[in-house]
């Protein structure tokens, strides 16, 4: 971990980066913001950890807990809402057995998240699965896609 953080720190010092960009780099590197990473960076830069957490908890793009391997993002912008995005999310959470305050499955295979607006309103409702954008999503089609991923994951486990 230290080696990876060293790289991020160097990049930060060279490019006159700021706290947000360093957190973005850590998030990109580890998929979330590990507590150890923040303590390490905070020690090295002599910046109190509170400053990092203050920013990390302000912006929804940062995560303090590990995320699932597959990320399913449902757009909940107005256009998607009107076309039933809530319904998609509730079918997702029930399919993946997520509790109301959970966003990641216990086995860390899936994370379900909401996003404000992806700006693709004309193909609402929009769901992004692992960076791939799907438009005009229906609950049936979404379940099929999720089941396919689940199957792929369980096959991998067997192998």
């Amino acid at each position, binding site marked *: 971990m230290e080696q990876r953080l060293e790289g991020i720190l160097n990049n930060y010092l060279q490019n006159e*980066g*700021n*706290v*947000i*960009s360093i957190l*973005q780099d850590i998030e990109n590197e580890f998929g979330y913001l590990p507590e150890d990473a923040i303590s390490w960076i905070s020690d090295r830069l002599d910046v109190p950890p509170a400053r990092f957490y*203050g*920013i990390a908890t*302000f*912006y*929804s*793009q940062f995560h303090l807990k590990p995320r699932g391997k597959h990320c399913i993002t449902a757009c909940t*912008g*107005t*256009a998607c*809402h*009107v*076309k039933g995005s809530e*319904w998609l999310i*509730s*079918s997702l959470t*029930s399919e993946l057995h997520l509790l109301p305050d959970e966003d990641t499955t216990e086995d860390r295979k899936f994370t379900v998240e909401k*996003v*404000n*607006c*992806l*700006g*693709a*309103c*004309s*193909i*609402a409702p*929009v769901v992004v699965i692992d*960076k*791939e*954008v*799907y*438009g*005009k999503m229906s609950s049936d089609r979404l379940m099929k896609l999720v089941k396919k991923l689940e199957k792929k994951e369980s096959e991998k486990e067997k192998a």
Partner: protein
Amino acid sequence: MSTSSVEIKVCLGTSGNAAGGEEVLRLFRHYVFDRAVEARIGTRCEFRKVGCRGFCSKDVLVDVIINGSKTTYQSVKPIMVERIVDDHIVGGGPIPEWMAGDEYTSFHSKQYKIILGPCGEIDPENIDDYIRMNGYRAARKAVTKMTPDGVIDVVTQSGLRGRGGSGFSTGEKWRICRGQKNDTRYIIGNVGEVNRALAEGNPHAIIEGLLIGGYAIGAQKGYLYIRERYHLSVERLRTALDQARDKGFIGKDIFGSGFDFNIEFSFGTESFICGEETALMESIEGKRAMPRYRPPFPAEKGLWGMPTVINNAETFSNIPLIIGMGADWFSSIGTAESKGTKVFTLSGKVKNNGLVEIPMGMPLREIVYSIGGGIAGNRKLKAVQVGGPSGGIIPESMIDMGLDYESLRKVGSIVGSGGMVVFDDEDCIVSVTKFFVEFLQRESCGECTPCRIGTKRMLELLIKITDGTGEIEDLDTLNRLSGIMTASSLCGLGRTASNPFITSFNHFRDEYLAHIRDKKCPAGVCPALVVFMVVPEKCKGCGLCRKACPAGAVTGEIKKAHDINQELCIKCGACYKVCKLKAIKKQ
């Protein structure tokens, strides 16, 4: 255009990609090569990936242009490509049943595309395409033949106003910034949701606009502020910026004039408040996006304490056109106070969803019925919400109003982000308002009390009303809260957060009263106030609703009338949606 040419344009914006556009383009290349099409027809085929042309609900859109005559195909699937190549490109006979029909024509005929025009025509990843359309000519003219003040004069005369927020005169903003004594100045282009298509379809126009703006205010550095999540926009802008640098349009001694200007990316975050100028600057500086007090205004004291101009990408896209074609040309479009065009994302219950560009002042009716093709499923139009979450809700009775800054302000709405959502009689206005307030409450940065607490209390009251426990006094409280928030919030988010409530309450008072007094949701949306029931006379017992019900609340034998167990029913409406016989009623 040469006398013999074949050009194939495939729409590859976010939506085109989502519909399988990459594969469609790959197959066109494949078949043309595989069948030696170029040799057989004796001409070269050019393939072009183009940006979004707005009509995303019919993606993938493909233009086949043979000797200048264009045929547009809609909803092209990979499987259809082979026949288009064989029958049309080789055989010379277009395939009528796949061609874009009346909807496509009516969607486009009322629009006036000055900035979206090139999207869908040029390859956004090829700077030469842009240059061929007079790209960077305006920048050259500004930098080599005009003084900065001359540029500002033209922009001011054109009447261009900021396309993002309050509609402040762009030229004025630039002049204030230029008038500051500091040597260091910054210019920022904010690429928001609605600007996505511009960034994906014609990124060079944004860069050229930023460059001209930088020259006019005397900035050395510009920022493109964009959400990291908009992968395709980021990619296309990055490519465009690299190409512009290679050509010497960005960098040192631009056009040999001695003017140096550089552009950098600043990756924004998922945050609505970043649409507020000062919050955006805080975010670029690496802090929490919390708005600053003003004055001083950003044009006086902005990023890193230096004079800064922030405009959004749509505003910047207009700049090369204004410099190139003149202030008079631009101000001939639109109304007396609102010049030019505006891009809206038309969505919701209209037939044709998409990105539309209209001259300012066009009546809302024309957008909904001519461009949007009317309400889907032949239902009744109820209201249109304009301006994003903090915009106002405009009822059906007022849809003859024109869309411009002044008219929208008069009805309690804003141009805002250019969002436009159409609601039909199946949408509950109270629930919709709750949705907007919920969003604004979540996005409130928490800095000032009226907005932080006001949005929260407002949401609680709206939840109470939709849950069926609302009281008449709650409406007074909501009105009082709205007044306080509008008058005393620090920034635009708080000041406009009550727009959805105020406008919806003014126009749909009866609906609020029905929720509170009669404990009924007239549109049948609010779960606590609606009951789903089977109409036994109409039910043929097909079992569709039984299969659709996620809670197992529907029971019944095949070919016999079904029944809904009210204790198990979660009021999701799935049965209502699947029933083809209208045998399920909402009450």
